[in-house]
């Protein structure tokens, strides 16, 4: 080791009396000696090599719950738990069967359920299931505050996932045949609903409208608000205003734009009125 003469920097300002005294006090401190028993044990372990297998000193070991791995694990668990909580809280209210009219067998994802078995039917109405409604039966299904759907008689269509509260705010339904009526609630604000048929794609951001899938084509009637309608691939999307309809033909004829159907003029406001209590 070297002495202070090697120090290449110029000396600092003179030390104060207190600093000088502290320095001298420190330099005068005697060497501290380890306890004899410790010294003797450590010497034995060092000389024989037993020190390599000696247990680590207790004061230097970190409890398992303070190790970085445990901390990372705890952080990961907390993050996962938070994710689960947020995911659960993000979910829209579950689908409820608000009304069943008529008698018959509804098929949900291939499972036949008599309309009299309301509870069983409701239990099967999960997002993504495919619902086949027989002639003479109508279903009204709602996710409180978000979205209500009316399945008219003879309709075959999927049940969409109701949009999440904060994220995953989009939903998609597919109509194979028949008619679905939609009305959205206050919690739907800012979400997006898409409906696809053989030939059409409908996109709504909050409104009351009907999608009618017939052998000749798809008719979209808008009672309230506006929806975008185009071909299934999303080509030629055009806005359909309230009170209007757009018809996309299966045989390739040009789309028809006209006033909405008289039936829908009557049915859509009734549907909306029936569901208004649940859509607040």
């Amino acid at each position, binding site marked *: *080791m*070297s*002495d*202070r003469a*090697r*120090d*290449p*920097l110029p000396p*600092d300002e003179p*030390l*104060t009396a*207190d*600093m*000088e*005294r*502290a*320095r*001298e*006090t*420190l*330099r*005068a*401190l*005697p*060497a*501290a*000696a*380890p*306890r004899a028993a*410790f*010294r003797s044990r*450590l*010497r034995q*372990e*060092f*000389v*024989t*090599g037993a*020190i*390599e297998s*000696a247990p*680590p*000193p*207790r*004061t*230097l*070991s*970190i*409890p398992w719950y*303070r*190790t970085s791995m445990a901390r990372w694990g705890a952080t990961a668990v907390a993050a996962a738990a938070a994710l689960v909580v947020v995911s659960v809280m993000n979910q829209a209210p579950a689908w409820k069967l608000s009304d069943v009219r008529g008698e018959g067998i509804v098929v949900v994802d291939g499972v036949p359920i008599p309309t009299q078995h309301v509870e069983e039917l409701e239990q099967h109405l999960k997002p993504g299931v495919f619902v086949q409604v027989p002639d003479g039966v109508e279903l009204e299904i709602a996710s409180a505050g978000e979205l209500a759907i009316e399945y008219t008689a003879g309709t075959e269509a999927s049940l969409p996932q109701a949009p999440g509260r904060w994220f995953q705010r989009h939903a998609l339904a597919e109509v194979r045949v028949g008619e679905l009526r939609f009305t959205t609630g206050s919690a739907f604000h800012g979400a997006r609903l898409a409906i696809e048929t053989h030939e059409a794609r409908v996109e709504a951001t909050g409104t009351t409208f009907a999608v009618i899938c017939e052998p000749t084509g798809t008719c979209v009637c808008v009672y309230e608000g506006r929806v975008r309608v185009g071909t299934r691939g999303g080509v030629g999307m055009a806005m359909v205003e309230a009170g209007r309809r757009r018809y996309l033909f299966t045989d390739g004829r040009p789309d028809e734009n006209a006033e909405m159907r008289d039936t829908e003029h009557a049915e859509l406001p009734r549907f909306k009125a029936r569901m208004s209590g649940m859509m607040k």
Partner: protein
Amino acid sequence: MSGSAAARRAGSDPLPREVLERVRAREPEALGAFFERYVDQVFSLVYRLLGDRTLAEDVTQEVFLKVHRAAPQLDASRDPGPWLTTIATNACRDLWRSGAHRLRKKSDSLEDDSGLAERLTRQQDEPEGEAIARERERIVQQAIGELPEPLRLAVVLHDYQGLDHLEIARLTGLGHAAARKRYSRALEKLGVLLKERLR
């Protein structure tokens, strides 16, 4: 350099090269000589830095474990003193950074004066001058312990262990001027603490 610090550095010659060569081969006799030559130096430094005998013993054990593991890489042509100082200092810094140390610090308030009874018993049996010296040492050690760890390191390495600022700068990864400045701050703070307590 003066007083005990100088004595600590100059008072013991490095081990002969042939002994260090045998330490590299981990020959028991050479390891014994190595231990005898350096154990007090290591413990003393660590104790002054940590201010706790049990912790100092544990860190000393850690240092000698590292030495045993690294023995085959030992440079027999050099005095291992600075190497040991580096290992001991780094072990203390690792301890300060560790969760175990932070936990211990939290519970220290409950154990602060655990050595009081031992001190009082000892003081009854020793001459008054020795008792005063011992009490003075305790006060100084306590003041050192109240310095923030980087300042404690600066002042103990320089004035107790006898390293110059350049060596301390290398050891702590600071620039030379920064090491000097830190030492100056540490000494100033220690001066204030001791002025209040050593009247």
